[in-house]
């Protein structure tokens, strides 16, 4: 394994609360956030918009079943 990222078994989840005015806006902001983290391929696991913004968990799979796993590389 060459990087810390390579040690992740399967997925990296990001959970937080962002300020926004609607669920579509939250989705847009989450996409931009993940893009900025270099995790363009992601999926929103949960998203709950209310009041000041959205509580969300978004996931980027780094190793999916059947892949050539990064954690098996020397």
């Amino acid at each position: 394994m060459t990087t810390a990222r390579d040690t992740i078994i399967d997925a990296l989840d990001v959970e937080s609360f962002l300020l926004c005015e609607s669920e579509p806006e939250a989705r847009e902001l989450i996409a931009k956030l993940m893009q900025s983290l270099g995790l363009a391929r992601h999926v929103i696991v949960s998203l709950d918009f209310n009041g000041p913004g959205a509580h969300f968990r978004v996931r980027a799979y780094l190793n999916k079943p059947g892949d050539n796993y990064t954690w098996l590389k020397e």
Partner: protein
Amino acid sequence: MKILLAPLDPVHDAGLKLIKRKLEVLGYPCVLLPPDITVEEIGEAALAEKADLIFVGRTVGYGVEQLFQRVKDVLTRQGVFGKIRVAIGGMAVNDELAKSLGFEGGYGPHTSIEEIHALIERNPELARHITHPVKNKPEFPFPHDYQVKIPETKKYLDQIVDGLMDWVTDKTSPGVRRAQITESQLRTVQGSVENYTALPFTREYLAQSDPSVADFFQKHVCPPSVRQITQDEVTAYLRRIDLAKRNFHPRVLQHDRTKPLVFIQYGTGCPMMDGMHIKVAESWGADGVLHFDPAWGARTEGLMDGFLTNAEDGTPVTYANLSLIKRSLDQATLWSVRAHRGLNTPEIAVLAGNLGAGLTKINIVYGSICGGTDPARLTVDGVEAMRIAARYKMPFDIPTNEELAGVPPHKAFAGMLIMAQLGRRLGAKPILKPLLCHGPYLMVQGLMEQNYVDYNFAKIRALQTIADFPIWPGEPIGFMTHDEEKVKSAATTALHAALCASLGVDAVTTASTDEAFSRGPITSAGRAAALHGIEETFRFFGQSDIVPGPHVKDWTEQLISGINRTLQAVAASPSFVDALYAGLLGNKEDGVYPGRAGKNSVIAQTSLKSGNFGLAPVTMRKNSGPAGKSPRPPAIAARRCR
């Protein structure tokens, strides 16, 4: 040895009070200083009391490093440090920090009294069972007498099982034949995951298999979404598993109860990903794991071999894959390989038994009306699988996930009890597996509108009233109550587990927090999160039980009555198999129907004593013909897939 306990907080000294009480139980004289004192006063008190050891505690976390550095400086100036041993503790303290500052040791919020004892005596062995816990494999299931206690229920069950046994007497199937071939081959094969050689599948075996299995062995074609794992990948994986085993400190979830044991299901598609998930689950307290195979595997005659990974749900059952999983398991982990619902039921039971899986899963009813397999075929294969389970001393569980399709619980339970009684007749140990779910029938009837406790309570109480079989709710508990939000999901799993603990069941199968998330594979972090929730919930309830509401008594009686009505109807049917086709244990109106895979593949046997395979000319089978009496053909080596 006299111990001085000194709080460095203005008010918080509960931790030191707790340690004092426990150390005094161990026989150590202790002196606890009051809060709001200076370091100089601690040094003076230690000298005056002629203490052998000082524990200095600081609850508040910020700035502890600088604070304890000053403690060391002051005590050194006083001639205390170096003369009297000093250890430190607090919310932000651990042994590593303490030793880096030159103290005897350190304790934090999760330090046990055994570890403090070991520190005092400078004897790590005193805390070895805490720092290096060893879990022993439990005898599972727990003892039961397997007796049906309600005479009416027993009468129907015995009638049904008598008829079922008569029905299968002169029948066999390609699945049964393959199981016999495989069992015979396994007697001579020594599998090694380090240098794997595929099982020597024969033409005789392939004659009993689907063309896709023959293509795999003869033309090296894998099914779509499947690829072969290289031996290099296996070697690298085994190194990682060995590392994980080296650092393994298993947790115990049950707090002060002995049951329920906690199982998780795996079947990500890849045996190596499964293995890593298993290591996570074992480390976070799971007692057992269940192997789930892909749906296509259940509808294919014959098994492939080699290390195969599937890009979709369900990990292919092969001798190699199961061997790799076995190599990944801790010695204490209970392992179940499900055989129950498809065309390879007896053969998978053989592989599971041969590889030392402690458990398997067989339910003819579920597999017939919900799993897509023809009832006649699965009845023949299911009975054989139960015989195999008995021979290998593998208890088998009987899932009732037909409830998820809409079958009412009383019908699902009637089918489950028939399987249990059949299993006992065949000398096996059956385990009832009611589904604790918010299933379609319960939703439509509004039986869980007020809570998730009462109807689940009634289900388990009904089964406990009827018979003393082991009960292992699944699969997983809380099905259809989970949410994509992680905390909600962990909470519902943990609370269902607590309910099961109250009901005294033997085990539970639990979901990860990704249970309701369907847009990607389950994650290892989701498994750990769910087990955290269970651990805390078991800690919260301890031995306190959940008390059922007022509806439970009536619902329990209604369930028992419904079960008996269903059993009566099945007993009156021409045969158990006819009852399955007729929908007496679940019909189209409920949401299920007889499966078609393996239809017309049952073979009538004429004479098992004649020395041949006992196969008569095919009367019911329309697919490929039986192998007949041909001499044992040459082996076909498995090779890499294209």
